[in-house]
């Protein structure tokens, strides 16, 4: 068995193990663990777009909301008819939840395709602002779409998300991104980031690579959104605004763009930081933003990027 597949298997076993013992783990720690897992999925998938492919997207929260809404709609409106009045067994609930997440991920991927095709011909700051614009448009549409709750959002979403689902999908996300990056596509992504003109000159279809990265990133953002919705049990459009996208981007940049391990560590650190700062609740956000500036000034290459010898591509 190749090594990445072995790691994936181990990770899935660990996630199964954790959920087996989850009754004995403190619920607060379990909640934090789920929060960490969701953020890892978001940050690793965004890293594929922003880090490896070098396309600065500011709309990740928008794709997350598409996934959250669609999967919640499946479990709220479609599942009761499938499961019957009794609510079904734990296994059938699990199967329904899996397909709900998949539906959320796929619809987010479609949204990613619709956004990506026109906007990926823009570069740099312009791409950033257009993806930001699309993210805000998605939010406003949900805000005005009454069948999905309008501005109030959806409530009473079944609490299907547990440590197993989050850790398992986290492992699958990391595995997929790692495999993709080490494939022909991955070379294409990195070539597109390093020098788009040179990549085109040797015959790479850079537009295709950008769109593939964008769609895969959106897919996992949708999955993360579904997990998040079935964890919080309530979602509203205001929870997926611009500041949520920023939160994810901060993880990617602190972890070091295009460095999956670093991004995972940053996602863990930045999810735990507000929890650790809870005793000083009043100053919590002030300290968070202050630390962000200090970290950026002290380690501009990313907190967990240790490739000192390698020269940065311009």
């Amino acid at each position: 068995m190749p090594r990445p597949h072995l790691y994936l298997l181990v990770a899935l076993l660990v996630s199964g193990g954790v959920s087996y013992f989850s009754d004995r783990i403190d619920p607060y720690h379990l909640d934090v663990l789920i929060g960490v897992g969701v953020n890892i999925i978001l940050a690793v998938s965004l890293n594929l777009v922003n880090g490896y492919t070098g396309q600065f997207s500011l709309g990740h929260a928008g794709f997350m909301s598409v996934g959250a809404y669609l999967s919640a709609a499946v479990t709220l409106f479609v599942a009761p008819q499938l499961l019957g009045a009794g609510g079904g067994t734990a296994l059938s609930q699990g199967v329904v939840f899996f397909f709900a997440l998949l539906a959320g991920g796929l619809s987010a991927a479609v949204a990613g395709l619709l956004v990506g095709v026109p906007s990926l011909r823009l570069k740099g700051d312009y791409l950033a602002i257009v993806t930001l614009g699309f993210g805000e448009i998605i939010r406003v549409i949900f805000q005005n779409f009454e069948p999905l709750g309008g501005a109030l959002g959806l409530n009473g979403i079944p609490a299907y998300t547990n440590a197993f689902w989050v850790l398992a999908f986290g492992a699958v996300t990391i595995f997929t991104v790692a495999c993709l990056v080490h494939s022909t596509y991955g070379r294409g992504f990195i070539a597109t980031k390093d020098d788009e003109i040179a990549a085109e000159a040797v015959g790479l279809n850079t537009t295709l690579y950008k769109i593939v990265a964008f769609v895969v990133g959106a897919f996992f953002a949708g999955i993360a959104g579904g997990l998040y919705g079935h964890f919080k049990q309530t979602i509203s459009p205001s929870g997926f605004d611009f500041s949520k996208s920023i939160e994810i981007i901060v993880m990617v940049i602190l972890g070091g763009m295009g460095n999956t391990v670093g991004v995972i560590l940053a996602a863990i650190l930045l999810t735990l930081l507000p929890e650790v700062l809870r005793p000083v609740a009043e100053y919590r956000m002030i300290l968070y933003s202050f630390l962000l500036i200090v970290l950026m000034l002290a380690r501009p290459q990313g907190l967990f990027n240790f490739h000192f010898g390698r020269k940065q591509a311009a």
Partner: protein
Amino acid sequence: MTEFLQQLLNGISLGAIFALIALGYTMVYGVLRFINFAHSDVFMVGAFVGYYIGRHVPEHTLWGGFLALAGAMAVCALLGVIIERLAYRRLRGSPTLNVLITAIGVSLLLENLGQFFFGATPRPFPELFPVTTFIVGGVYVSSNQLVVIGVTLGLLLALEFIVHRTKIGTAMRAVSLNPKAASLVGINIDVVISFTFALGSALAAAGGILYALNYPSIDPLMGVLPGLKAFVAAVLGGIGNIPGAALGGLLLGIVETFVNGSADWSSYKDAIAFAALIIILLFRPAGLLGRFTTEKV
């Protein structure tokens, strides 16, 4: 027709405020090539400084209003210089994204400090200027709208004078064109950049007070949405281009007011700003007044 003129007037006075904020984004982008996300919070600080000065000067007087305006502009100019000195200067020459994330950090810091010191609840903004309403040919013209348009015009003319007729303005344009060449001919880049931040932040402070006068409550997060829209306006006009920012702001204000005025679409007004931006960027990626630069290998 009367309704059209009324909406046009409302749009222009909203657009004037967007233009003032957009100028700060565009000038900083012009010299440093990065998006100063903290700009929208300087706008918020400006409104709060105006609020505190406004409590100590008599309401409904011209001199009181202009004193609050000048005070807020001075404080924010200083704030802008301090932010640049402490947070951005060390990162000059590092990748844009690092500066961008620092700017986001500064923005969050200002918002949270604002919530800590001012509290999160919105406060009513004092009526600084005399308030009357004129009716011209069926169109209601509030004195605050005249103040907004008058102050914006005055500031735009002053900016035009500074950028094109003074030594420091010439230096700004030189740095914007080519920083290395500018420093070779003896321009002190640090001074120019500090000056640019001071100028942009002062304009944002003026925008903050004018905004607060017309939407009379202020809170620490008030800058977020106008800031985003002003940034959209700057890109719309071609980022880095000063007349472009003014034009983009004005257009955005007018379009948003008209959309807001139509019953069917008013709840989509925040989305329309971005939709218009996306359409324009797809057909004219450098913005309305921006110049295309062909990339040379």
